């Protein structure tokens, strides 16, 4: 275990955790970036998805957006944005790229969730005299909730991963520890950073998994994957 002991000593050195380049500061940046972008993309994607899902239109848009989004390399978009005039304004290129890539999973999952609501239930609700708005908030959204949450989880985990890449273009966050390690040609630091990032991503996934179970409506709990 010759490769592991320097990694362990990096991780247990207090100086590596404190200060401007320390793990705690990078972790805070990472969390801030992830949740700001999650909120922004949810604000953009969810109203659109709920409207489209309610109207039953634009399915092709939601699906195509997700498919195209998959083919575009995040790293390329980050660099492209960095080289535009936006690149001179701190975190903006990162934030824009992160939001752009978080929108497709949110949009598709919420749209599919809305469309998968049993049409008999929708008709029954209409028959009871519900207006469009009531139908959305009282019937469709609660029933689509598990899938909407799945979209939020996928987007959040993806944001954690993408925020790591942001370090390649000079953004903050945990990935910075890894890139700094590469610049110093310090394998222990690279591996230690990678361990921290991986553990953080796994914890995030686990937290969302638990949160999803906890806040789903009781009748839908078993449907969650």
């Amino acid at each position: 275990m010759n490769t592991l002991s320097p990694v362990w000593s990096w991780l247990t050195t207090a100086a590596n955790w404190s200060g401007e380049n320390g793990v705690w500061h990078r972790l805070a940046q990472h969390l801030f970036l992830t949740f700001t972008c999650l909120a922004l993309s949810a604000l953009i994607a969810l109203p659109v998805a709920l409207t489209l899902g309610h109207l039953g239109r634009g399915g092709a848009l939601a699906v195509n957006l997700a498919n195209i989004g998959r083919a575009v390399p995040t790293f390329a978009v980050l660099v492209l944005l960095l080289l535009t005039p936006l690149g001179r304004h701190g975190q903006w290129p990162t934030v824009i790229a992160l939001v752009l890539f978080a929108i497709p999973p949110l949009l598709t999952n919420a749209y599919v969730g809305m469309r998968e609501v049993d049409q008999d239930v929708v008709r029954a609700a209409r028959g009871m005299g519900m207006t469009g708005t009531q139908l959305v908030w009282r019937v469709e959204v609660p029933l689509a909730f598990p899938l909407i949450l799945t979209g939020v989880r996928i987007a959040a985990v993806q944001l954690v991963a993408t925020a790591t890449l942001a370090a390649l273009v000079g953004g903050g966050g945990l990935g910075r520890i890894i890139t700094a390690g590469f610049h110093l040609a310090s394998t222990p630091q690279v591996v230690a950073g990678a361990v921290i990032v991986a553990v953080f991503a796994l914890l995030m996934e686990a937290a969302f998994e638990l949160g999803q179970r906890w806040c789903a409506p009781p009748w839908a709990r078993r449907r969650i994957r």
Partner: protein
Amino acid sequence: MTAPPPDDCLAHNDWICGGYLTTRRQILLDAVAQHIQLTVLSVALGLAIAVPLALLARRWRWMLGPVLGITTVIYTVPSLAMFSLLLPVYGLSATLVVVGLALYSLTLLVRNLLAGLDGVPAETKEAARGMGYGPMRQLLAVELPLALPAAMAGLRIATVSAVALTTVGAIVGYGGLGNLIYAGMNSFFKAQVLTASVLCVLLAVVFDLLLLGVERLLTPWRRAGRTARPRARKAGGAGGRRPLTASGRRG
């Protein structure tokens, strides 16, 4: 120092530049070749691991949980961290990138293979058994072909995300077009960054279309009758359509 001629887009550092394409042709071709090589190798390696895993998990059900669990955990690790974690094992090599990307493709491939195999109707399997097919022949001649559309859907997503993720390999110097993007970033060479990015997307689209073509060639029965009954196929099932909610690997 003389001022560059007004039409010299390289000197102006324009985003779109024909001069870049002609002067750096060989560099671009080399990068594309490396990109294709890395992508194909990693997806092939992923497939070589995923098929036995899926078959094992199907044979011994207790393996299903661990297989899906472990591949999902691997899938959660960000790419930059994944490449860095493999660094002590493989060093700064192309193998590092190939292994990392292959690990990512496992989840999609295993899940879709299993979904496809589970989607084979019980009557079909019974019919095959009734015709005297042994377990091996049943698997090869009946179940795998019927699971193909779902498996191909997974393969297409895995390949497209592998093309996009290969760019991150630039951190260890083996990123295909990603190398050009990385170098272009450091020197603010706009034409190089844009050209490499566009080529990346084009490459993903070409791979996707190729796999779609392969899928159509391998499943002739799904085309038969389509002209006769154009709307006969019902929605749902483990069809060849991409799973709407599956998300590709990113970042």
